[in-house]
């Protein structure tokens, strides 16, 4: 039973699972008791005994009828406690794994896959852990108990029931492997379709503009058809199993009865005992029926569970060598690169190689260079989204490899090239990084970022919704809101990666002026790194680093670089001469 591999995933809730089994056993016991009592009452009524003689039995029946719902309530509570427990722990572990891997390692993966794994895969495991697994134990135990009870009535009947009961759970195991494979392909089709839908949602404006939506639909139809086919393929197998179980459920008691009749015929069994045989043998098979129902509900989760296992068992990236160290940004260089190199996983050529530079605390350094020269990569390395594959990058004197990701992201605030806002309001987006900030502080940050207009009282002021991914704002408004957010983060190092590309020159100058000579609330002077294509934006930088093809082509002050007449001078001229024609 390959799915038993999943059991360790629920290790946080083992005690609850045990409780669940106990409750289930109690329920079975009550059900059997009720069956015996009913049998007694029936034979009493049939044989015409007086109702008064049956009072005890009737009272017992009433007791059983009351106990069952109580136990069932308890079971629901326990099932939900189990489900809450393992869902929380699985989701937490999946989120940790995702955060540890980081966006760069995952850049070839699909968000839709990770979404369905985090939600549906975990949800689908609920019937498996909460119902199927405990029922497995309950069904086995009940079958044993009932066979034992039957043995007291008649050993031959007990033997035949026992054999049937053994066949019910064992026969389907023959095609477990087949079912597992089918489950695998079902889950992958489901996850693919989910990812395709997410892709469609994201890219639909592009598809519509290119009139490609119909072609997209064809792709989706194919994925959906694959899901349909794999679902039905898996069903075919699992339905045979549940039909077999259903058959046994009816055939089992029938066989027991037939054997019983034969025994009565042979005079080995008293006729009235047949009532007990019929009712008891039914109880032996009832838990298996439930087991099969739960399996039907749970097998969708099993395949997904295997994917969860894969993700959790993937090797974790390197842990920081000295997690307790914090960057020191009071003196010395804020950022220092020594022979820094970086190659993206799977890439052939390095995105950065042999990069050396130093940024003193409080300085403003610009990084310029052609598109694709590695500027944004540098920002990612500062955030420890990946570790250098060569040389070292030091933040406040400590190599990023020694620091935790939190130490790095606490120190460095990056406004990324295509910043993402989260669905919600303006204020919610800002408070993400400064949960305690009052409206005044939010407005100050908006002012410094030149974004006061998004606080438009006609649209709801700070409570204006920004839409999915900020879609209700203009490109420049999104950028400025992201700048405001990074200011609220109050980090000693600020990296602006093309953060003002969608702004007009006036607004950009205002913002950069507002940023100059800032200090954090603790008084540390803010070190600023400006990545820009608009050369005029970096005029005020203390130092300019020019990247080309992942290497430092040149570095110096504005005037030095212009005098050198190298790449920077050419870049500058391309924009200036144009402006001065």
């Amino acid at each position, binding site marked *: 039973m390959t799915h038993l591999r999943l059991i360790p995933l629920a290790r946080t809730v083992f005690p609850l699972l045990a409780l669940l089994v106990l409750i289930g056993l109690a329920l079975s016991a009550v059900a059997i008791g009720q069956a015996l009592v009913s049998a007694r009452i029936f034979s009493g009524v049939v044989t015409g005994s007086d109702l008064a003689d049956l009072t005890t039995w009737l009272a017992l029946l009433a007791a059983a009828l009351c106990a069952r719902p109580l136990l069932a309530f308890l079971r629901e509570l326990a099932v939900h406690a189990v489900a809450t427990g393992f869902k929380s722990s699985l989701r937490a572990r999946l989120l940790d794994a995702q955060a540890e891997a980081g966006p760069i390692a995952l850049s070839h993966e699909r968000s839709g896959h990770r979404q369905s794994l985090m939600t549906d895969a975990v949800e689908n495991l609920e019937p498996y852990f909460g119902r199927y697994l405990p029922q497995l134990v309950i069904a086995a135990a009940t079958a044993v108990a009932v066979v034992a009870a039957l043995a007291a009535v008649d050993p031959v009947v007990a033997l035949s029931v026992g054999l049937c009961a053994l066949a019910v759970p064992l026969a389907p195991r023959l095609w477990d492997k087949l079912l597992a494979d089918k489950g695998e392909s079902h889950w992958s089709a489901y996850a693919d379709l989910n990812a395709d839908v997410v892709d469609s949602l994201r890219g639909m404006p592009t598809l519509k503009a290119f009139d490609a939506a119909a072609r997209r639909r064809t792709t989706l139809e194919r994925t959906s058809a694959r899901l349909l086919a794999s679902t039905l393929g898996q069903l075919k197998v699992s339905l045979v199993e549940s039909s077999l179980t259903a058959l046994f459920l009816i055939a089992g008691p029938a066989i027991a009865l037939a054997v019983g009749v034969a025994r009565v015929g042979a005079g080995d069994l008293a006729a009235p005992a047949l009532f007990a045989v019929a009712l008891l043998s039914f109880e032996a098979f009832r838990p298996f029926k439930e087991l099969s129902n739960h399996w039907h509900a749970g097998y969708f989760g099993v395949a997904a569970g295997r994917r969860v296992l894969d993700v959790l068992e993937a090797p974790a990236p390197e842990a920081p060598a000295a997690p307790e160290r914090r960057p020191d940004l009071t003196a010395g260089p804020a950022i220092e690169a020594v022979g820094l190199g970086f190659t993206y996983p799977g890439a052939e050529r390095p995105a950065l190689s042999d990069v050396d530079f130093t940024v003193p605390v409080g300085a403003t350094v610009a990084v310029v260079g052609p*598109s694709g020269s590695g500027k944004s990569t540098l920002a990612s390395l500062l955030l420890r989204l990946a570790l250098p594959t060569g040389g070292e990058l030091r933040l406040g004197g400590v190599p990023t490899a020694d620091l935790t990701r939190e130490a790095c992201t606490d120190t460095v605030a990056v406004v990324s090239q295509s910043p993402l806002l989260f669905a919600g309001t303006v204020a919610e987006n800002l408070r993400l990084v400064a949960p305690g900030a009052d409206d005044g502080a939010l407005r100050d940050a908006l002012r410094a970022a030149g974004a006061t207009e998004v606080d438009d009282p006609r649209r709801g002021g700070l409570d204006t919704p920004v839409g999915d991914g900020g879609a209700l704002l203009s490109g420049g408004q999104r950028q400025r809101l992201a700048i405001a957010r990074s200011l609220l983060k109050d980090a000693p190092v600020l990296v602006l990666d093309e953060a003002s590309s969608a702004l007009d*020159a006036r607004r950009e100058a205002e913002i950069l002026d507002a940023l100059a000579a800032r200090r954090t609330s603790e008084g540390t002077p803010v070190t600023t790194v400006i990545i820009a294509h608009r050369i005029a934006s970096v005029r005020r930088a203390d130092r300019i680093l020019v990247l080309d093809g992942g290497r430092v082509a040149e570095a110096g002050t504005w005037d030095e670089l212009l005098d050198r007449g190298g790449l920077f001078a050419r870049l500058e001229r391309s924009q200036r001469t144009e402006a*001065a024609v």
Partner: protein
Amino acid sequence: MPTEPSATPASSAALLRPVLRLLGAIGEDRAMFWRSTASMGAYQLFAAAAAGLSAATAALVATDPGATGTATLLLIGLAVAVAANGLFTWAESWLSHVLAYRVLDRLRLRLHDAIERITPGGLKRRRAGEVSGAAMADIESLEWFFAHTVGAGLNAAVGPLLVVAALAVLTGPAALIPLAGVACLLAVPWLMGPLQARQGKRVRDELGELKAASLEGAEGLREMLSLGLAERQKRRMLETTARVQRRKRAAALRAGAESALADLIVAATTLAYVLALAAAVRAGDLDAALFPAAIVLLGAAFAPAAGIFPMFQRLGEMSAAAARVLDVLDAPPAVAETRGGADPERRGAVRFEAVEFAYDPGTPVLKGLDFALAPGEHAALVGASGAGKSTIAHLLVRFWDPVSGRVLLDGADLRDVDTAALRARVALIPQQPYVFRGTVRSNLEIAAPAATEAAMWRALESAQLAGTVRDWPGGLDEPVGEGGATLSGGQRQRLAIAQAFLREPDLLVMDEAAAHLDGLGEQALAAAVAEIQAGRTTLVIAHRISTIRHADRVLFIEDGRIADEGAHEDLLERNADYRSLLAQADRAETAESAAT
């Protein structure tokens, strides 16, 4: 940030409405539906027969141990009934599931069509994660309804009536007791309907929230990690998980209470019936041999109702899931696309006539915009951030229609032009292009499915991306990550430019297309555009002077209107606002370079 509360059904009838509306989706599989329902009836009948036969056998053997011949016959009948029951059980399961999953498949495609219809306007206020959740998890959960509820519902209505009729024949008026029992049983979930509806909606809404939060976390991983939000995201997911579980538990406890009530009803009915029969036997109105058979048939009367019971108990959730699906299916499109319609002469003349536009009433973006682009003209659209430039671009590809006024292409109102033809003639390079996961080639094919390799390379060449692509080991087949995750910002943008070039449009709209290019790349791009679009119309939206300068004419928009238009130099000279918007830094440069 949960979804806006939509009205919760207040009665059991209202609870059924959303699911019943989706019943239409069974459509072409109606025959299969009837076959599956008939199979269900058949297997329940055979189950009842098997139970009846075994009871009869037991009674026969108990009363007359000598009648082995009849007993054997009865046992053979029993075997046949058991086999037939197995067969029909299987047939019913198979048919009902095939039916259900086919319906789900169709619903998914319909939902995808709805996504297309409401893009982009309708999606901005919804969270993508919730919409994908509706397409996948919500629709998937309806399997339960289509496979297990519809047919079972019919059976539950018909089956007990048949059995009760049989009981009436066997036992006379006492058969009214089981009838009342079955009615009581079915009344339980019906009376609990409103509560169930509330609970179901809460469960589905919280699951939707979970979907949205997890997609946000997956897509926004970089942003969340950079902002140090990993712990917060974890907390949020765990809180949502806990809420989902609480809601589910409340629903499960309600279901438990209902089931307990049901058990009670079944037990009470059975007992009452047994007593009534016992009395009848004693009074001599009933043959004692019929007694066990009647009891077994009683079980058969309850079986379909007891079978449908758990289905009814989940109607609340089904209904809420169906409502979430319908919410997307019913969303109105932002524009009514035109099929057929005028096909004006292709010149590329654009005209905005008193165009007013607002996303939300009360906050107008364009307030009577008037301008015209002559065929072949290269114009630049300049204005502060948030002035409405991208809005104008979107009006040109009919992502929106003006609130009043008209947008004309070659003299025809865009609303009268075939929308597909319009989009073939107008190419938009969006401010934030989306790159699909796939390869460079697959992305170019989205724009032009029939493009030859040579054409692709030409387009890449003009977009200044050819050198980069050539350097990649995969070339055109180099894989690119979702949203262009493996590309640099400028590479993503240049890929979008190449896509637009492949379309060879009459009107090219470039929304900040060069924003992530360096000066040299920008110049080369401008030269390429001049060459490719020679004789065709181009509208460039830009903030950088170096881009604006290439335009024949600049349209300066301010406060939702054209504030000024003319050559860049002239505007610099005469318009102080324009100067202030652009010139600050660049005027100085201009003066400086004039000095050198």
